[in-house]
């Protein structure tokens, strides 16, 4: 069985994409001094967080987020909602839209 890439996996899931309004906000540069060992990178089941070594910052894409909330738990800054970090549900029906569930 050939292994699907994360993009191929997420292509099977339906999303009502809102490109412009990110429901999760992080501060890519502040993530340099992460107190949570950048656990989001390995703990996000949709691999939305990628540490960019060359740019020395976090890359985050809210499109494709499954809204599970695990980053809100493993990232201390998202959990506490410190400045530059916030976690909300998408508005007006945007985001993941499971057909199977």
């Amino acid at each position, binding site marked *: *069985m050939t*292994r*699907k890439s*994360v993009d191929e*996996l*997420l292509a*099977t*899931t*339906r999303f*009502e994409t809102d490109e412009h309004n990110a429901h999760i906000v992080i501060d890519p540069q502040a993530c340099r001094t992460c107190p*949570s*060992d950048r*656990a989001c990178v*390995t*703990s*996000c*089941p*949709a*691999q939305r967080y990628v540490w960019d070594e060359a740019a020395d910052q976090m890359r985050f894409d809210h499109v494709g987020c*499954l*809204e*599970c*909330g*695990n980053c*809100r*738990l*493993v990232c201390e800054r998202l*959990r*506490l909602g410190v400045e530059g970090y916030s*976690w*909300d*549900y*998408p*508005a*007006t*029906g945007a*985001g*993941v*839209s*499971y*057909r*199977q*569930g």
Partner: protein
Amino acid sequence: MADDDAFDAIVVGGGFAGLAAAYRLAQADKSVLVVERGQVCGAKNLTGGRIYAYALQALLGDRWREAPVQREVKREIISLLTEQDAVNVDSTLTSVEEESYTVLAAPLLAWLAEQAEEAGAMIVTETTVDGLIIRDGRVCGVTTGDEQLEASVVIDCEGINPLLLERAGLIRRLDPHDVAVGAKFVFGMPAAEVEQRFGVQPGEGAALLGMGDPTHGVFGGVFAYTNNESVSLGLVVDSAAWAKSGRSLLHTAQDLQEHPALRRYVGDAELLEYGAHLVYEGGYDTLPQMSGDGWLICGDAAGLCLNRGFTIRGMDYAVMSGIAAADTVVEAVEAGDPGPTGLAGYRRRLDDGLLQDFRALRGGHAWMSGTPDLFTVYPKLAVDLMTDLYHVGADPVRPVGSTVWRTARKVRKPFSTARSLLKGMKTL
């Protein structure tokens, strides 16, 4: 008190708890509005999954049989997994009648929403509630965008991430130690192939829960469920422990499809959907205050999920808590007291009902999460024992007793292990 145009109740979230509460309230001729953030009810829900029918029966009576559940579970498999091998405890329980069904959350909740609407509940979708209206300490409604919606009581069924309650300070912040994260793949295949792969009769289904190497020593497990024309396969792991493991959750979930003992169920099938969801596992001692001045909490938001290792229950408790909340609200509204006293009956109803389970299994989560041998040593011992028992080669055979003894001697601390297992039996 609420205005004339206010609802008796606003339900935040059209999942199992919210729709159960709304259906029940509408049946009692109370005005109820469900505010759901998804495109439709069910769009944001994900289950393993399997539901226990008693809860649907309690809500819908015999009409629950019209519900789009998947297959009646007649075969139960507990699987102890090492990297390549597995030992299964495989039970064929054809005598069990109408007890439990595999489910997909989206179609079941869409149907449940129809039932609630037919009963008279109003449901708005694509609407995210962003705050509670609180006046003099009493919750009087919700806000969404510029809109304010008022009600005598707000029933919070917003799910495992209770943002509204956390922000209003009505509940403590979700603690990663009380939560597990699950990832699930749904693979499509014709009904006959589901039946062939799982060895079940037409229309009947199987449920598999496994523990061992796939979670790499982290508290958690794997699951597989037969749907009508698909198979759900996934894993659930402790959120806090996984964060420390440094392993990719996605890749670990993908590894399941390649495990020789799991590949047979899904190999070469088309992936229909990938999803992820949190699972509350904190247990009785972490449960929040269930109601207050003008508000009640149900389902996942209230932490009403229970993992015993061999059964994981959340949807049935969500439905039962929705029923209990609705009955309490009917009483409170009719008595003209939606305050903390009027709503205190909710906790009493839960205490006499589903919380009995939570009290009985009080130490279960602590025991499982504090017994890493469950996920490493014991599956390996089981596989080693069976490997030795079935071994035939040029070497002389060994009597069964000596094979068992040889395996038992691999247990490093036999007495503390026995003590720990006895404790497990008491707490689960």
